[in-house]
């Protein structure tokens, strides 16, 4: 069981997996933050149909498992899209300028990124909304009494405070993105958990493989927590974050 550590080759697999996990999580977090903010604004829209649709969207994404959503994007959408588009998506293309030379991502990467981003965006939207709700309503009234327009009130009174309140919970959601990215192994994306499982299957060194992967995850989550603490002086992101 504890017979030595993993051969360098397998450590290489694990580090490659960590790279995919970090890259996927970073991209998904950025997309989810932007999309989450937009969804929050739509959710608070004075138009009832818009607010209702946004509420239904958020509820649908928050109340179904990420795993099922990933299966839907990976297996379901590939069956719904026209064959020509699937062929195009699966064929390699060069993206961006030659200098970057980034390879065309495989379809499981696209589906994983889409699924993880949409799922996380719904949770981020709720964190933004909680932040906005926690700004005392009297401040809006005060702004109006000073003759400010509602745009001015939003930009210079509500949002700066709401973002300050929401940033620690949002950091907690970024931690959840890192942890949730592990589910993309189920659609065959070669990230950290997938690599750990592969190494375990090849070497039977389950303890070493899962131990190293666990350490990598704890390290990544601790880095986010440490950043949140250093930058904003919060002891840690809140513990009860919905996931």
């Amino acid at each position: 069981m504890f017979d030595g550590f993993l051969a360098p080759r397998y450590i290489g697999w694990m580090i490659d997996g960590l790279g995919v996990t970090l890259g996927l999580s970073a991209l998904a977090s950025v997309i989810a933050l932007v999309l989450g903010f937009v969804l929050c604004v739509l959710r608070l829209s004075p138009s009832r149909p818009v607010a209702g649709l946004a509420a239904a969207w958020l509820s649908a994404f928050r109340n179904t498992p990420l795993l099922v959503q990933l299966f839907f994007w990976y297996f379901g959408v590939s069956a719904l899209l026209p064959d020509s588009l699937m062929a195009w998506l699966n064929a390699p293309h060069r993206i961006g300028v030659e200098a970057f030379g980034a390879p065309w991502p495989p379809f499981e990467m696209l589906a994983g990124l889409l699924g993880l981003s949409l799922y996380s965006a719904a949770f981020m939207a709720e964190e933004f909304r909680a932040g906005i709700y926690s700004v005392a309503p009297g401040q809006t009234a005060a702004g109006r009494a000073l003759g400010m327009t509602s745009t001015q009130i939003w930009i210079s009174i509500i949002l700066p405070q709401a973002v300050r309140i929401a940033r620690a919970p949002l950091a907690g959601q970024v931690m959840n993105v890192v942890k949730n990215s592990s589910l993309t192994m189920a659609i065959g994306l070669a990230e950290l958990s997938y690599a750990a499982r592969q190494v375990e299957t090849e070497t039977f060194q389950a303890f070493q493989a899962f131990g190293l992967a666990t350490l990598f995850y704890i390290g990544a989550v601790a880095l986010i927590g440490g950043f949140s603490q250093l930058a904003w002086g919060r002891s840690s992101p809140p513990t009860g974050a919905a996931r």
Partner: protein
Amino acid sequence: MNPSVITDNLIYFLVGPWPQGPLGGAALTVILTVLSAALSGVLGLVFGVLLSVLRGPWLAVLRLGLGLFRAIPVLMLIFWIYFLAPIAFGLDVPGVGSVVAALSLIGGAYLAHTVHAGIEALPRGQWAAASALGLSRRQTLWLVVAPQVLPRMAPSVVNQWIALTKDTSLAYVIGVAELSFVATQVSNRVMVYPAEIYLFVAVLYFILCAGFELAAGRLARRYRSLPA
């Protein structure tokens, strides 16, 4: 859209191969949720009370332990229990047991902080008052603190249940025949209409989770109106 793939396999989605074989499908999902909700509730209460009463190095150890459970993906913990418990302790943990153990530990680690925060939110004077009345610390906990703290925790407990319900889908990775696993079985067998299958399964999960969400909203409104 082709609804026949759903109607033809409806019973299989709901109960798996039962009664010919073991119970599976949505029924197993509900069982996994109920078992891990109950166990995580017990663990959360115990660890939460300990967070409030322990001092010094033991408190640090407990905090570190709970922090670890909240830092690792549920999937990793399931792997640890499923693949390593047999090697490390010679215990052959069945898939269902591994999943319930992993979800209870992680759910309990989250709930512990909810319980702890609830206890800390009570004015310290209540402990002093109870002690002045001659109550022991244990009596104070059960007769004074618990009746005030537990109802207020209800909304976040229900939110934990939503997370648990969704997390039971991870049992798929170790081949436990709950709803997600059964869905992939059907999808692989019929080879067509995966979108219909996964949408339907998502709707089943949504019914379970949205029910809890409604309950959480009701509870939150009810207890918000209570005096602090």
